[in-house]
């Protein structure tokens, strides 16, 4: 029985430059702010940042790892509130994703996801809706 207040297992993902390059290739998103410090800084960013869609893809793993079938995801949205800057080193940048069931009604569970890098939230209003059986 799934109830409001249930906390899903958190997940920490480390993003390195090589991960960003691989995501760029797989997704076709070659925006230079995700691979060129020069281009990122020209736009006023502190450096190369993670693709928002890559962060979004990582965040929902907390939910899809938990439900039996990822096909039960019916809605998913986020706001990209803070860029995740990835230094050009082997350590990269880590983001910890956690999630909690906010409510369950009519066979649907609303789950709020939190994404934190260092002390800062990098996603806002991140919410997934899943069918519960």
């Amino acid at each position: 029985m799934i109830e409001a207040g249930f906390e899903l297992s958190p997940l920490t993902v480390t993003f390195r430059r090589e991960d960003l390059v691989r995501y760029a290739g797989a997704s076709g998103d070659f925006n230079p702010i995700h691979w060129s410090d020069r281009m990122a800084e020209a736009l006023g960013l502190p450096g190369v940042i993670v693709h928002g869609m890559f962060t979004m893809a990582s965040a929902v793993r907390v939910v899809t790892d938990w439900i039996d079938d990822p096909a039960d995801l019916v809605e998913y949205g986020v706001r990209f509130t803070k860029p995740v800057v990835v230094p050009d080193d082997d350590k990269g940048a880590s983001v910890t994703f956690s999630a909690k069931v906010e409510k369950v009604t009519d066979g649907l569970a609303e789950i709020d996801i939190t994404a934190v890098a260092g002390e800062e939230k990098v996603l806002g209003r991140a919410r997934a809706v899943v069918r519960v059986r």
Partner: protein
Amino acid sequence: MTIDATMVGREYAAAGSYQVGREKIREFADAIGDGNPAYRGDDAIAPPTFAFVIGSRALEQLLNDAELGLRLDRIVHGAQKFAYTRPIKAGDEIAATATITTVRKAGPVEVIMYETTLTTVAGEPIATATSTLSHNRADA
């Protein structure tokens, strides 16, 4: 070479349909570090955000609209939402159409919202994506 509220309602269809391949799904799942078995094999479904990869082909048409004068390297993705009718599956042939829904200006920054519908070429609905982009026309 500017964008304003008169552009709300403009539609951009992706050139041709997108043929979803199981190896592409696996490549994408590997790239996001997701080992879920649902994204692998003959009956693979795509990870949820793969919808954006297909939708971005319609976005490409929007970015190519010379009247709007947008540049990819001046765009920051502000928000993204998906509503799924069913997952994307290997073997699907998908058409994507993007429609501008809102345009807001704040100085040199243009906030553009658009909605992308993904359907099979036979017309079966798959997903609707709602995106918010910030485009900065000022040089940093």
